[in-house]
């Protein structure tokens, strides 16, 4: 007969019901023996007080054993019944009852594979999150860099603007045009000078 260890009951009570019953059985049995012993002591004492009593202590002991043997037999039978009822009706967790600490067992149940997959998904999500964070850092770094580059480029453009403004303030709205204009004028001047020089030579010669 397989023993029902009643571990679920032990989880709730903190002791096994069988131990509890054993503890009660031993205590009750001890009391039965103790009371029987007390009865025998009292009877022997009473007999001591009776002069020329023919009943010997051995006889009384035999009577005690006879009564105790009978009582023990009935005691064991009755206790067996009581134990059965105790284990069925009092110290048992009914099969449809779940202990509070196990409530979660009813809510969600995952197979080992599902649990594994969940773990895998969590790890993947963690990796993905890390990647996204790195991406964010990279973007922020580039944005920072862009700010610097743009500032430099804008500064360069400002320099050009300031140059042109300087020109403008001195009457040359457009440097290039004015230079072209200068070059043309210079050429004209040179031509004029050449002509003047030629004329001068002619005059000398004549």
């Amino acid at each position, binding site marked *: 007969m397989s023993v029902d*260890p*009643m*571990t*679920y009951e*032990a*989880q709730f009570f*903190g*002791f*096994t019901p*069988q*131990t509890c019953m054993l503890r009660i059985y031993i205590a009750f049995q001890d009391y039965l023996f103790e009371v029987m012993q007390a009865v025998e002591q009292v009877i022997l004492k009473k007999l001591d007080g009776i002069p020329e009593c023919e009943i010997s202590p051995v006889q009384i002991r035999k009577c005690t054993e006879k009564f105790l043997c009978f009582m023990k037999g009935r005691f064991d039978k009755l206790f067996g019944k009581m134990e059965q009822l105790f284990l069925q009706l009092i110290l048992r967790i009914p099969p449809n009852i779940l*202990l509070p*600490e196990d409530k979660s067992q009813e809510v969600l149940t995952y197979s080992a594979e599902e649990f594994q997959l969940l773990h895998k998904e969590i790890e993947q999500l*963690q990796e993905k999150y890390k990647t996204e964070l790195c991406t964010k850092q990279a973007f922020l770094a580039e944005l920072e860099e862009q700010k610097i580059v743009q500032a430099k480029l804008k500064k360069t453009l400002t320099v050009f603007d300031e140059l042109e403004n300087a020109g403008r303030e001195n009457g040359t709205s457009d440097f290039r045009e004015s230079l072209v204009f200068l070059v043309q004028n210079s050429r004209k001047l040179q031509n004029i000078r050449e002509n003047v020089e030629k004329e001068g030579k002619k005059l000398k010669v004549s």
Partner: protein
Amino acid sequence: FDEIIVDIATKRKQYPRKILECVIKIIKAKRE
């Protein structure tokens, strides 16, 4: 045998909560 049963039952009662506390700590630490 009885002691083993009580020992196992006690662990079944207490350990899930203890393990849960550790797991929650780990998850929180990972999150941080």
